[in-house]
């Protein structure tokens, strides 16, 4: 019984963990910092370095105007750039109809993987995008 409870609590503790594929350039350091943050939260990250990163983003369907350095794919949804983990989990818990993913465009200095460790995230928006090419404001830091 005790081992069953332990097994259940282990499952409960990892229920939020996601299997993430990240497409990035081998020269990108801030992508690696973002990945470290996601791994530290218990997520499993597989990294890919496509020869043509922009071509890979085209194939995945990341809108040009929302692009950053890395693209993460989780459960078929796209997560572009330095998105805080909490926004990704909130999205995955209840993905809006027609949603394709989230993006933090560009390279905001105070976003996860960019901000000095321990400092509050600020000065950027989390944008939702859908299969119809519509954008929406999901969160603001």
């Amino acid at each position, binding site marked *: 019984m005790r081992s069953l409870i332990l097994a259940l609590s282990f499952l409960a503790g990892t229920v939020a963990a996601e299997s993430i594929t990240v497409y990035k350039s081998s020269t990108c350091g801030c992508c690696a910092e973002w990945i470290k943050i996601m791994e530290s939260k218990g997520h499993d990250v597989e990294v890919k370095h496509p020869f*043509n*990163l922009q071509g890979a983003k085209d194939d995945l369907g990341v809108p040009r*105007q929302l692009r*950053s*350095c890395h693209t993460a794919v989780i459960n078929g949804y796209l997560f572009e750039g330095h998105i805080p983990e909490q926004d990704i989990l909130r999205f995955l818990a209840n993905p809006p109809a027609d949603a394709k993913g989230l993006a933090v465009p*560009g*390279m*905001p200095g105070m976003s996860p993987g960019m901000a000095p460790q321990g400092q509050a995230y600020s000065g950027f928006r989390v944008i939702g995008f859908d299969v119809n090419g519509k*954008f929406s404001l999901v969160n603001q830091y």
Partner: protein
Amino acid sequence: MAEPPNPGRDLYLTAGGYGCGVCHGPVANGGGQAGGPIRGATREALDKALKEQPTMKLLVDELSQDNIADLSRYLELLAQIPLVELVYNDLGWAITQEPVTRGQTVQMVVSNDSFGDLALDLQAFGFAPATITPLNTLVLEWIAEAGTFFLPDNGLLVVPAEDICIH
């Protein structure tokens, strides 16, 4: 087109697979990103960044000496091109503009920071009307003509008819 050919520009848009613009804006104007504006950055500054700045250091193996020279030439060329930046959001326009002289090539960077389409009448500048989709940026290269041009939100771009020479 007004834009002079420059291999550094292509490199600027593609270096490292993501391009310099991700951190420094589409025309090295900063664009609110972490790297800030680098128009006019010297070769010395570029070499220093590639040697010392953590993100830039990772690019060293990607760039040949010729690549670095091309990039540096492009950035120095941009310093001679006045920049007019117009950012539109739901609160209105934010405009920054550098002084412009008649005949100069001017880069006008128009960003639509809102979630609706932005329709622009660009007739005064000799361009056809344009619609900028949400969160998109339009870069126009304009050969400045003399005149007074009204920009949104009481912005004013004045291009003098004659260069003023003081003897």
